[in-house]
């Protein structure tokens, strides 16, 4: 199979996006097109990409070779060349497969979810464009090309968050996301450029970088590692750049599912795994990453326990799960982290889509305490959500259990018991807040029984079912040896496997037990507090946690307002009152001196003669001095 097809994985959704965009313009300007036209393009492209990726996957299963394709020389300055290159290795093809698959399902889901929206075509244009960018990000063979995709997904994220742009809150959320991401990009660019300078002499693709990074001084590598991680923090919503993620839920629910849960936000994890050759040299930085991940996980989980907005809870849970992933990649267990990305994509997408289904059913109601009793109204959603919730809580044999277990295991095995402890604590809280959500939404007693429940279309329900199946099955790709599995995922990603960790089977089984117990404890507390919760007794919300530790407000004061004030100061004070008034002052001073001088022009002949005489006298004095 020729390698140029690799580029078509990206090109198919991209072309489809362009066609969709043009069609959309045609539709709004000239003649209205039906939604089906858009759906045809929008829905087929992810699956075509998936099919191509699948072909490559099969090929790679057979010969195990990395596929590399250079489309053209992207930029050549001086002796450096950067190609528009695509690379399918085990990691990227793995990512591609589930991104296209889950992405495709979410597309299908969105076709139902968005069917009444005016900008149907526009939505799919964005969605396809997002997919193309995401695939470029994953398939890129060099950091620069990756960055193109990286920013592309950021842009789509912005566009989709502010999709309902008429409400300024939504646009503001979009802006926040974009700016926070850009802070991360700053790190990425700095890292990229440093790498370019110190290790780019023999080419700037990952393979060459991997070969030449060894020659770079270790301080520089440290610095690259930190800068790269800043990029990852921005994209993957970790402390301190996480603030955008909860607000990002302003976009339509499929967006939250696809971008802010399943794919884009995991790009940070992917990036760290991609640059494993950097982080392998600097384990200390890795540890910092792991700790940031751990704290993010705990922090987000804490906030999630008090939230009422269903999407916000899921958003915080995403952040929390991303924290887990960073624990893994920080500790060098990249395959474990990626595996969690993989399982998380399924169950989190499912959770969001389920939440979206509930929201649609209830006419865009997002407060869980206004839902309740959805079990009987939406049984399919109930079951699929149950699977997903169990999965995220870490109950075997659902997928989340396997991936989370591995993460905690590697934390324990690395000797970072604090990380492990935080992980377990977070696991308890995860189980708690997820089941809190679950119980309230599906079992809560809602007195207002007269509400009208919207019938959910098939296009919404089918993806739910498929993903539910996926949430169960995917876990079995990573069954640990302890349980008699072969851990296929880990094998496939062997290059990214942390080989230094060893732990005996007894400890491993004990840890596994602890994990399950932790989840059960969380579920139990949630059950106690919220099973058949009476919606009339909604607690009053206040306190630190409900207010998200006031981080948004602190940021507002620290950055937004101070910069605004600085801006006004520069534009109004420095520019106008100092620099410009200096100039204008000079000229007006000049003119006022002119008025002073002009007094000499008093039209008095005698005075003029006198001035002349003065001049002559001065010249005479000059003569006397000179001739002496």
């Amino acid at each position: 199979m020729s390698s140029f097809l690799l580029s078509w994985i990206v090109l198919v959704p991209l072309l489809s996006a362009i066609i969709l965009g043009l069609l959309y313009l045609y539709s709004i300007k000239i003649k209205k097109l039906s939604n089906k036209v858009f759906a045809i393009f929008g829905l087929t492209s992810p699956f075509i990409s998936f099919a191509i990726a699948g072909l490559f996957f099969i090929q790679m299963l057979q010969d195990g070779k990395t596929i590399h394709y250079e489309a053209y020389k992207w930029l050549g300055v001086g002796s450096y060349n950067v190609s528009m290159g695509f690379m399918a290795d085990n990691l990227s093809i793995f990512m591609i497969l589930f991104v296209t698959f889950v992405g495709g399902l979410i597309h299908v889901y969105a076709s139902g979810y968005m069917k009444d929206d005016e900008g149907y075509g526009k939505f799919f244009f964005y969605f396809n464009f997002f997919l193309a960018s995401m695939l470029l990000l994953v398939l890129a063979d060099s950091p620069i090309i990756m960055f193109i995709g990286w920013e592309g997904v950021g842009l789509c994220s912005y566009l989709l968050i502010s999709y309902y742009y008429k409400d300024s809150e939504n646009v503001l959320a979009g802006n926040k996301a974009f700016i926070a991401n850009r802070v991360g990009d700053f790190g990425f660019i700095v890292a990229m450029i440093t790498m370019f300078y110190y290790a780019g002499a023999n080419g700037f693709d990952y393979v060459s970088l991997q070969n030449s990074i060894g020659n770079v001084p270790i301080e520089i590598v440290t610095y690259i590692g930190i800068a790269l991680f800043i990029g990852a923090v921005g994209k993957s919503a970790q402390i301190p750049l996480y603030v955008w993620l909860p607000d990002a839920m302003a976009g339509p629910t499929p967006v939250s599912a696809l971008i802010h849960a399943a794919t884009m936000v995991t790009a940070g994890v992917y990036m760290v795994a991609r640059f494993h050759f950097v982080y392998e040299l600097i384990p200390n930085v890795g540890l910092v990453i792991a700790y940031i991940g751990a704290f993010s996980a705990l922090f987000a989980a804490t906030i999630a326990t008090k939230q009422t907005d269903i999407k916000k809870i899921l958003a915080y849970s995403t952040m929390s799960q991303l924290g887990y992933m960073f624990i893994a990649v920080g500790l060098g267990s990249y395959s474990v982290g990626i595996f969690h990305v993989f399982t998380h994509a399924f169950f989190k997408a499912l959770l969001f889509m389920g939440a979206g289904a509930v929201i649609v059913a209830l006419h865009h109601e997002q407060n869980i305490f206004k839902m309740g009793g959805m079990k009987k109204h939406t049984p399919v959603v109930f079951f699929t959500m149950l699977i997903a919730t169990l999965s995220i809580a870490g109950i075997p044999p659902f997928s989340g259990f396997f991936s989370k277990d591995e993460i905690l295991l590697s934390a324990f095995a690395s000797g970072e018991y604090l990380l492990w402890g935080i992980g377990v604590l977070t696991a308890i809280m995860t189980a708690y807040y997820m089941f809190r959500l679950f119980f309230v939404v599906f079992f809560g007693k809602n007195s207002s029984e007269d509400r009208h429940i919207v019938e959910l279309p098939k296009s919404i329900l089918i993806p739910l079912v498929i993903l539910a199946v996926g949430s169960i099955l995917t876990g079995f790709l990573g069954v640990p040896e302890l349980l008699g599995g072969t851990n296929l995922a880990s094998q496939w990603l062997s290059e990214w496997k942390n080989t230094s960790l060893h732990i005996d089977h007894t400890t491993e089984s004990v840890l596994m037990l602890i994990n399950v117990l932790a989840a059960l404890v969380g579920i139990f507390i949630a059950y106690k507090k919220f099973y058949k919760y009476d919606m009339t007794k909604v607690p009053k919300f206040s306190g630190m946690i409900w207010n998200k530790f006031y981080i948004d407000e602190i940021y507002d004061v620290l950055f937004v307002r101070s910069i605004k004030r600085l801006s006004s100061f520069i534009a109004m004070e420095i520019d106008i009152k100092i620099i410009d008034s200096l100039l204008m002052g000079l000229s007006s001073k000049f003119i006022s001196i002119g008025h002073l001088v002009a007094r000499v022009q008093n039209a008095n002949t005698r005075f003029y003669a006198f001035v002349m005489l003065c001049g002559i006298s001065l010249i005479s004095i000059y003569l006397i001095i000179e001739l002496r």
Partner: protein
Amino acid sequence: MDFSILSVIIFLPIFVVFVLLALPVGAKGSRNAAFVTSIMIFILAMTVYLNFEFSGYMQFIEHHEWITSYGIYYSLGIDGFSLIILMLIATLIPCAFLLLWNGRTKAYWVNMLLIQSGITGTLFAQDLILFYFFWEAMLLPVFMIIGMFGTGNRVFSTIKVTVYTIMGSLFMFICILYIGVSFFEEFGVWSFALQDVVKISSFTRSEEIWLFFGFMIAFAIKIPLFPFHTWLIQTYSNSPTGGVFLLSSIMAKLGVYGIVRFVMPLFPDLYIEFAPYFVWLGIFGLIYFGIAALMQTDIKKMFAYSSASHLGFIVTGIFSLNAYGMTGALFLIIAHAMATGALFLLVGKMEYNLKSKNISDLGGIAKQAPIFTLFFMIMLLCIVGLPGTNGFVSEFLIILGAFGMQASAGIVSALTVLVAASFMFWMFQRAILQDTDNDTSNMKDLDLKEIIGLAPIAFLIIAMGVYPDWFLFKIEPTIQHYLVDILQIKAS
């Protein structure tokens, strides 16, 4: 050369102006004539581009005596650097004319044509006096166009900008004369031709420093660099669309061009010596103007600051003394010219339709004019430097260049990714998106002509972002040519 194509490019608009003035042509006829002229110049420029040889040296040279007694030559030539700016001008101006299609008077078009002549003349001149000649002459139609068709306190601001820029260029004038006299004293013949005056070796250090800053002041005011920027804000805000388009997208770049064309070969030692300061000045401008832009309420003022911010960044690239920075600066010249020019044109349309350029009066335009919004977005993304647009390529290269000069400069300059994004997106939210109670129902979407005008710009912005190398190969030898000289001196 039998057919002096560069002269034709310069003087064709002037010729058309004379014809227009002689004949009783109305506004429409003048506009059509101007448009046809710009298209013809585009064709001529394409001819130049296609016949341009792949080398770093001057081509299409025309050398005639002008004022023989003082060795002033009518000397034209073009190298890769000017070629790319020529192509930019030739492409942008017809596109812009399409957007300025309606509601302009004959005087407007006459001035636009004159400006075009001045710009190309400045670009081709290879003689210091000839360069100064066009440099100053260009100012007049700009003066007229801002003063006659501007808004607000236009008379005051027009005079202010004219006196200010002439002040800068007059200092350059003195320096040019000084150089000419020095050449005469050293070689015994008069010449102001660039190829001759670079041979001067008799300057003392203090002389060189004076001359260097004499030139730099002229260019710094035109660009503008901090702290010579105060004219810019008012002028951009008061200018008519066409004027601000030309000012921002082309004339400001000529300041940068002047640095590369004249300051660099004339004072290579000082260029290297002061390069770090200018790199930092550029970065300072980038951040300073970027922050200042944030709270502007007038959308044109905001773009003015944004423009200044980017030009600071271009200067950073020019002074970074390596191929990345130089290439990046050249790329940013193009990217910024296209994006800012198009943005100003779009804002001009907005102002024309809504009679307001105040951000708080706008909002809800996206709903009214989706195609407008699409183009606005593309230009905005280019300004922000999003990958996939040429804005990113240039920013990346300049950061790389700055890093090559000083690691810290590179890191600080990387803040560019934040600076533009913050104010641009905020502006976009308030001016274009949202749904406000302000009456924006008068906003018309782009018509076909305007789409045809903007589409090439948008296409190029994206094409240059996706496949930058294709646009670089012709200028690569020129950049190398400049650098070889610079690096040799740096080494010694």
